[in-house]
């Protein structure tokens, strides 16, 4: 068996990621070639082409415990044994789908008909169901110092009175906890009365705004006709700026849905100049491929623009470019590298039982309750998929289903235990969901793109490190802050 490693090069160096030790080692070119030959069973070349010193240096790495061939024996999630405790005591948040109705018909929406999982309907949640959901959450989050309630739709603001009822009930039931309230909205229905209430109750809004009028109105249109909503969103934001300036700067974040068929630069320019959101956090997400009937097409130009903007962010973090020239929409990219870098913590060897990265603790991480009181791991999964329905407000969590989703690596175990990218994998059960069961074939069809992303990520990390980026935690500088 070969060493459990992944080798890669950057323009500035040769590296290997040692899966057992969970660290990246910098190699000399000779070391890299020797390992490359050995991993390809071409040991003749090793002995003939290289100096004994180079070969000895590889042996030295083995003596230090690197280059082990050990593979894990099974996919077994580390939280599998304590899953009940997490579900009983540590549910992180609850999101209520208070209505399936929306006043918009966004062309890329998961309710638009282009997806297998959802369509718009007149269904809405009963207040009693919402209250039971809140009680269930309080009961199952005893270990948390905070209480996190989110509203989701359809468009939740179609049900403002319902939201008020829920917030007041939650504030009473969550007494003693730090309360966080969140609402995802298209912002077309915001009124002074609503914002005033939200300000008093410290509700945080995530507003969907895709860019300029031209970009936004291309997809985000009203239900009755094809009229875009950009102008109404701007009008409402203007009202908030005038009457509730603190709310605008403290409680509003924007999410731009990027359409990869378009250019990125025009969206980027809009947000760079967007006065109303100067202090707000802005994030971007691409039109989701999950459960989509067709695939989302991506233009070459879009990819190259995104990559170039990422490159500029790296330059800025390294001190070669002023931050003002970088894309605020992509600012999380660098932090993601830092987060991933922190996962590289050296260990003795890979445990026999391990699970690849990706799955959350279904139900405990982002509990989503639909209008009928059914539970799902989060708002992204298919409500039409029986295996994703992990419980109900009346009978509680379905622990057997949750264990299957948590240990989704089991269905592709033979591949996963030999995969060098398993620690950095981001595939959860959604990647395997065929609506009528979890499919190994569907899941592994995503492996090559996942490995490609992880390989790029490791290359980014090493390149940044070559240029002196401090990706670890800066405890020293924190201590020195006055």
């Amino acid at each position: 068996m070969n060493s459990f490693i992944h080798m890669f090069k950057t323009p500035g160096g040769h590296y290997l990621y040692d899966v057992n030790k969970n660290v990246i080692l910098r190699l000399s070119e000779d070391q890299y070639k020797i390992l490359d030959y050995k991993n390809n069973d071409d040991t003749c070349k090793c002995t003939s082409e290289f100096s004994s010193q180079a070969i000895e240096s590889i042996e030295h790495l083995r003596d230090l415990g690197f280059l082990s061939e050990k593979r894990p024996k099974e996919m077994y999630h580390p939280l599998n044994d304590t899953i009940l405790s997490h579900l009983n005591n540590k549910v992180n948040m609850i999101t209520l789908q208070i209505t399936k109705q929306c006043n918009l018909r966004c062309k890329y929406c998961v309710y638009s008909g282009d997806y297998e999982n959802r369509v718009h309907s007149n269904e809405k949640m009963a207040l009693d169901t919402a209250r039971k959901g809140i009680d269930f959450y309080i009961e199952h989050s005893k270990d948390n110092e905070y209480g996190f309630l989110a509203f989701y739709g359809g468009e939740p603001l179609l049900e403002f009175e319902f939201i008020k009822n829920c917030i007041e009930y939650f504030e009473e039931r969550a007494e003693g906890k730090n309360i966080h309230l969140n609402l995802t909205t298209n912002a077309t229905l915001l009124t002074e009365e609503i914002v005033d209430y939200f300000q008093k109750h410290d509700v945080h809004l995530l507003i969907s705004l895709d860019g300029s009028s031209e970009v936004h109105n291309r997809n985000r249109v009203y239900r009755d006709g094809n009229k875009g909503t950009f102008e109404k969103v701007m009008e409402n934001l203007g009202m908030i700026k005038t009457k509730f300036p603190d709310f605008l700067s403290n409680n509003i974040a924007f999410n731009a849905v990027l359409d990869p068929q378009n250019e990125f630069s025009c969206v980027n320019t809009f947000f760079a100049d967007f006065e109303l959101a100067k202090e707000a956090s802005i994030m971007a997400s691409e039109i989701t491929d999950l459960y989509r009937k067709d695939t989302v097409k991506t233009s070459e130009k879009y990819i190259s623009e995104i990559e170039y903007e990422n490159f500029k962010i790296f330059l800025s973090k390294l001190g070669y470019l002023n931050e003002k020239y970088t894309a605020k929409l992509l600012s999380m990219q660098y932090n993601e590298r830092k987060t991933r870098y922190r996962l590289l913590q050296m260990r003795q060897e890979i445990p026999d039982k391990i699970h690849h990265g990706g799955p959350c603790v279904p139900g405990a991480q982002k509990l989503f309750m639909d209008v009928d009181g059914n539970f799902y791991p989060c708002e992204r999964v298919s409500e039409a998929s029986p295996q994703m329905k992990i419980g109900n407000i009346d009978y509680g969590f379905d622990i057997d289903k949750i264990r299957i989703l948590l240990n989704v690596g089991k269905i592709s175990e033979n591949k996963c235990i030999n995969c060098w990218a398993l620690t950095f994998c981001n595939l959860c059960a959604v990647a395997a969901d065929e609506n009528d069961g979890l499919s190994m074939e569907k899941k592994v069809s995503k492996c090559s793109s996942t490995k490609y992303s992880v390989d790029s990520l490791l290359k980014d990390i090493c390149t940044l490190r070559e240029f002196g980026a401090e990706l670890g935690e800066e405890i020293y500088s924190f201590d020195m802050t006055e």
Partner: protein
Amino acid sequence: MRKNERLLIYPYNMEFTPVLRHRSLLMGYEISCLVAPNGWGFTGKDAGIADRGPDIGISVAADFEKSLDLCDTVMIIKSHLPFDFDKYIFNKIKLAVKLKKNIICSLKLDREAIKEISSMCNCEGVYFKYFDGTQNVLPEEIVIDNESIEEIDTPVILTVGISEKTNKFEIQLALREKIQKLGYKISQIGTRSYCEMIGFHSFPSFMYGNAISDVNKVLMFNRFIKKIEKTEEPDIISIGVPGGIMPLNRKFTNNFGLFAFEISQAVVPDVVIASMLYEDYKPEGFDTYTNLIKYRLGFEVDFFNIANMQFDWKRANQEHVRSYTSLDYRFIDEKKMKYSSNNIPVLNILNKSDSNFMADQAIKKLVGYADVQIV
């Protein structure tokens, strides 16, 4: 016979559950009601929910005002979760005092609050007892020139935690209850500030703060124990060490286990109980901990206890916060089965037969010492 004072405990949480489990130890008090804020999820449930242990037979209420009718004294305690004093507690204290209830407080307060509560209590003719760990065994200003250690002749049982939140107080109270029942006289120093209510000494305040050098802390703790030995003439001394004995990692350092180190230099224990958070340890993993304690603190472990708490590494890594997941105590019973062949017993203190076993075996070991008389 003097009637016991009826206590209302607020905000009830797992910090106080060991006292409830061993409430017969309370000296002059009885528990009349437990009140916790709604959001903690205990309302209407048996008090055992707080530490996920067996049922206790007292239920938790949420209505503080209504519960005041049932008590003489309100005891404000520390909580396992952050809990805003001004927002939730101070008004309740004012209300209680107005209704002529005494106030006991083991929560750390600032000077202003202490002054204000004292003055309110004075006006209403009720008492305010504030536990700040002040001890009266030794004078506060003791100067020790002699750097040598007094020998403690009474057997010492020491309870340490590998880290925080390891059910140490439950161990200390379970042992006390059992040892007293067996007819032995026990002197005890516990890890809570209100131990005097249960008839023993709180961890002395001179061990905290920077006013005294570490060397003097060791010497003072040694003299503190010696004085207790002389004045109380116990058969057994039980000491609980606050905090953990070692850092979890670079970020969560448990004060580097300094208390444990200082106490290990001040007294030589005869029985050592080491309690740890739950992880899926390999049986041989306990050998590592045995050696670690042996070479770090200088003593052999007699019993390991696995607490029904797990450190939340995910939150620690992502949010840099110290957070725990509580586990049902029966889960520990299942998991400890795989250590049944270990040389050193691995126990679950919330299991009655384990706590009995721990006390019986500790006594057996100490009685065995008495068979050998060294002159």
